[in-house]
């Protein structure tokens, strides 16, 4: 039986089974295997050591990442408080003239939906609802910029067209630079009428049994240097005005069905006699039941003229 056959059989050979030559070959093979094992051992020991070092480095990176994440979370928490503080309280005079409720929810700690209450240079109430492109810190920073612009110009102008055009004109280059734009829904109310400019926002006015949807034919802020259009509608005691961003109406179910403007407007119209706080709550409840998950910032503002 040859050496190969003996090895194949797995049986331990006796002296007579192998020749001296085969025995010598076995010895050489054994030494060769010993050397190979030594080299393998050294290789795997070095590899193992390297793995251990790699894990230690990974651990350290994990800790660094956790520290950085905590700092970012702290910053975001502060930013969220700052943004919250920048959103307005209802001014006393406005509160006595209007019954008003707002639902405002940012997708992240800070966001790009923004609403504000102003008084024009003529003493008229003005309300703006904006949706800045994107989410997060960059959108929130743009919000603070736009707020400052509106606060500045409202001291000298009363026309929503003039106000929005001025803000667009002065903000255009900045918004281009930071690659942002914002939808705008801006309303100025006097004793008998409201005037509005709408560039991408959503608005619904209910007066008795009549409903009017805002014409949103204008461009977004920061998108084009074009004139805006001003529309005027009668606005009397008891009339209901809803202004909102796309957060609710573009929400989807798991199957991809849209909530839709129609659904929200119908819900508001059906419940128009209710207190505005109740209408907002109903809308939010319906939205929450409908959507699979929040995927955008949300602003829904509903007001009723009291006087």
């Amino acid at each position, binding site marked *: 039986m040859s050496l190969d056959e003996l090895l194949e059989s797995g049986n331990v050979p006796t002296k007579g089974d192998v020749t001296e030559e085969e025995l010598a070959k076995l010895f050489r093979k054994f*030494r*060769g295997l010993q050397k190979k094992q030594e080299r393998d051992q050294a*290789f795997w020991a070095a590899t193992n050591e390297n793995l251990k070092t790699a894990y230690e480095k990974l651990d350290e990176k994990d800790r660094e990442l956790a520290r950085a994440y905590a700092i970012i979370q702290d910053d975001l928490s502060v930013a969220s408080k700052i943004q919250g503080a920048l959103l307005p309280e209802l001014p006393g005079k406005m509160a006595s003239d209007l019954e008003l409720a707002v639902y405002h929810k940012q997708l992240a700690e800070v966001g790009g939906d923004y609403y504000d209450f102003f008084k024009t240079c003529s003493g008229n109430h003005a309300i703006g609802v904006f949706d800045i492109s994107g989410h997060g810190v960059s959108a929130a920073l743009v919000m603070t910029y736009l707020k400052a612009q509106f606060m500045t110009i409202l001291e000298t102008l009363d026309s929503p067209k003039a106000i929005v055009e001025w803000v667009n004109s002065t903000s255009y280059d900045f918004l281009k630079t930071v690659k942002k734009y914002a939808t705008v829904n801006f309303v100025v109310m006097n004793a008998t009428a409201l005037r509005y400019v709408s560039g991408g926002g959503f608005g619904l006015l209910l007066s008795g049994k009549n409903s009017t949807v805002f014409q949103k034919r204008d461009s977004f802020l920061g998108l084009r240097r074009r004139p805006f259009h001003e529309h005027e509608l009668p606005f009397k005691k008891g009339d209901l005005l809803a202004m909102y961003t796309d957060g609710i109406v573009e929400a989807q179910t798991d199957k991809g069905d849209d909530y839709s403007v129609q659904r929200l407007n119908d819900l508001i119209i059906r419940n128009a006699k209710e207190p505005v706080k109740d209408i907002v709550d109903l809308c939010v409840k319906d939205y929450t039941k409908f959507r699979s998950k929040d995927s955008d910032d949300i602003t829904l503002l509903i007001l009723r003229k009291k006087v």
Partner: protein
Amino acid sequence: MGKDSKASELVVFGATIQGYAQACINLNIVAGSKAENLIGEIEVTGWYPFEKLREIERVVTEAYENAGPILERVGMEMMLGWYHYGPGKEIVKRGVDFLYFQTGSQGYASVVKGPQELVGSFNLEFVDEQKGRARINSTTPFNKDQERGVIIGGMSAPGDLDYIDVKNQENPQIFEIEFA
């Protein structure tokens, strides 16, 4: 630097660099984009500054505290590639042929060019097939652990030797070889 590189500086044959890099990849010493960077833009028939090879070597020495056994294995892996996918099978029929191939530094000279004082030599001093002993003297700029691996790998590749041991612990440039 490509195929037409002048040998006024130390240059290495592209296939050698690629073989070195491929060995590192095969042994999972590098992966992903780092691996692509090692191989990228190397033409097998081109000549490249020796520094290119040092760059790859640094990948190993910076990652491993004890890089010796790893470089030895890289050298072995390189020669398996040379034998199975390169010209090795034509040159080396028996393990001992790999030693003869180093006579007068001919093997080394086919992959490294440049000023003699920088190139050095990788020369077979003697071989005794009966006793299973040989010696190679190396004055090349290559890592000596890796060169030990190259000798082991080159001699093992044909598969006819039962036993190979290469020692250079006393003098890194002198490789004492035992084989059977």
